[in-house]
């Protein structure tokens, strides 16, 4: 053989060996709102955690999949808060981009809408922002779908427990003022709350709904104030959680228990109102004193520049940790094997030790409270470090 061809062979051999070593890439697909009505929430809770986790994994050299180190390649799309658009993009992720795994969508409706298509391609969906009472039915139909943030009933139960406790302590009476946003989320929660509150002997003396995006919530707040109830509960979405708080401050609402649902746990909520919303209750919660959570929050701020929310942010990160440990534990990118691994094992996450029973992880916070600038968890399931519920004491 001529020298040049021998050299060429050797070079080709070396090159192909080098290429084989660097070949390990796990394609991860993530579709969530970056524009549209739910973008405000997804930008706080979902996207930063995806970015944080991918960066951390890649800086460690990637994941060890059966002896081979594989880095994560993130493919992200904006679903514009449109379910039709999301399904189209999910199809693209599965068939065109051929991703190995996906990050579960943001929003209950989106998780349920995409369960069939992700199920068809065997993608495990570790859903976080998906709260429903129909989990048994859904997981029976879609065995690839996992839930981690609790049921609608648990969501309402947290509030109900606080009302019962405060009534027993003589701080509130039987009267409750309750409002909800006229969207599937608010309506479902209000319906469930009416049942559960009535069971405990509470009387809902002011019971109104308002359209999403109502610019002037003062009639609603004035009505609640006039009812004289010492407890106020709002099954609200981000814009109205902010709006209702503002109105409560203006009207100096005289209640001992004030709860608004989504976005109360956002750092922006605390920043907008400062000390005035001290002792306001809201959906979610977290235990900032837990060392794992504290470490996670610090890393989140350093890497993404944003403060995580005090609710689903930690769960979103935990879901990605579960995916990581399942891939590493199963030692393969075979999605069926990884899905089975998720069902059969427990995982060490920032939310503690998580495991699934019937595809449901029963470790989550349901109610939190702003206490001196920190939104602490006060009610939850299988979580430690619940702070004591304080009474609302004026709006200064």
């Amino acid at each position, binding site marked *: 053989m001529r020298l040049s061809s021998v050299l060429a062979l050797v070079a080709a051999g070396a090159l192909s060996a080098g290429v084989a070593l660097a070949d390990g890439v796990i394609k991860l697909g993530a579709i969530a709102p970056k*524009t549209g009505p739910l973008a405000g929430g997804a930008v706080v809770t979902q996207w930063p955690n995806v970015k944080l986790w991918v960066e951390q994994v890649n800086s460690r050299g990637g994941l060890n999949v059966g002896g081979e180190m594989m880095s994560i390649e993130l493919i992200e799309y904006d679903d514009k808060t449109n379910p039709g658009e999301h399904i189209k993009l999910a199809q693209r992720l599965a068939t065109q981009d051929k991703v190995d795994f996906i990050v579960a969508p943001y929003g209950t409706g989106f998780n349920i809408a995409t369960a069939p298509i992700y199920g068809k391609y065997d993608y495990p969906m570790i859903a976080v922002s998906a709260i429903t009472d129909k989990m048994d039915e859904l997981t029976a139909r879609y065995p690839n779908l996992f839930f981690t943030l609790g049921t609608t009933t648990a969501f309402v139960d947290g509030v109900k427990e606080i009302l019962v406790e405060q009534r027993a302590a003589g701080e509130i009476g039987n009267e409750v003022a309750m409002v909800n946003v006229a969207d599937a989320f608010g309506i479902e929660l209000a319906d469930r709350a009416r049942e559960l509150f009535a069971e405990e002997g509470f009387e809902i003396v002011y019971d109104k709904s308002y359209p999403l995006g109502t610019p002037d919530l003062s*009639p609603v707040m004035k009505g609640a104030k006039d009812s004289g109830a010492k407890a106020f509960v709002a099954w609200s979405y981000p814009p109205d959680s*902010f709006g209702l708080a503002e109105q409560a401050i203006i009207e100096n609402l005289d209640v001992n228990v004030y709860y608004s649902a989504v976005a109360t746990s*956002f750092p922006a909520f605390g920043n907008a109102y400062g000390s005035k919303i001290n002792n306001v209750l809201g959906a979610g919660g977290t235990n900032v004193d837990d060392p794992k959570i504290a470490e996670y929050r610090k890393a989140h701020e350093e890497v993404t520049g944003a403060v995580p929310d005090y609710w689903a942010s930690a769960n979103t990160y935990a879901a990605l940790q579960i995916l990581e440990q399942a891939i590493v534990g199963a030692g393969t990118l075979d999605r069926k094997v990884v899905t089975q691994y998720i069902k059969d094992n427990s995982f060490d996450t920032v939310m503690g030790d998580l495991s699934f029973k019937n595809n449901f992880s029963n470790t989550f916070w349901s109610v939190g409270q702003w206490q001196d600038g920190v939104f602490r968890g006060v009610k939850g399931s299988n979580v430690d470090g619940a702070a004591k519920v304080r009474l609302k004491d004026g709006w200064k």
Partner: protein
Amino acid sequence: MLDILVSGLLLSGTYALVAMGLNLQYGVAKIMNLANGEVLVLGALASFWLFTTQNLSPLITVLILVPLSFIGNWLIYKFLMLPLVRRSKSKGALEVDSILSTFGMSFIIIGIMVSIEGGFFAYKYLSHPIEIIGSTTSVNRLMAFVLASIIALMLYVWLNVSRQGMAVRAVSVSNEAAGLVGINVVAVSGLAFAIGGMVTAIGGALISTFITLDASIGVVYTMKALIIVIMGGVGDIRGSVIAAVILGVVETAVATLVDPGLTLASAYFIFICVLLLRPQGLFGRPTS
């Protein structure tokens, strides 16, 4: 009763701020600006960003927005809208073209805003309670109402007293006739478009002090502005103001006396009634 009146009037201040700009752009420049809501949100974003990063009062942001939004909107008219105006052979064609063009523009603006701030523009300014004739409200809403009234008054005076305002009114009646009497229709249209955009951006900055907006909510405000402009009659500021008052008071009355869930229904119900009984709007000219 008093609560309804006061809250309703304050709400109409918000609605007037949202609608006056579109009235000028559609009534005079004949541009159905579907990106109107996005310009409103741009003003809100400016206010939010300057308040949270530089601790700048939204009132100062409003002063900064006056020249900035005027120039910005004038440039949009000159480079994006004028080619359409020159090209269209009929008023209908211009409307369709401007709808399509501004619709596309709204997505560009949303994209830019999302890249600056994808979350909620959550801040509060002057959120102190104040009592007016027995009803409590917040200082920021009152301020928005007062400024809306001042802007409406200034626009009305300018349009009806000044010579330039007369030219603007002439163009809103008829482009051809105005051109025949020596009015530079293009220059006047550009001026009206720019002023309309400026009023909208200022409105956005003011309402952001008490309404939590985000990059994607512009379309809701475009729709509200559209109702008010059509209801009040295209081209007349008085119409927008009266329509805003009717809408604000009725919505508040329905929310207090019946159910807050019916506010949208009542707004659109009035809209349909006006269209059925007086299609040109309250102050509009009957179409020939």
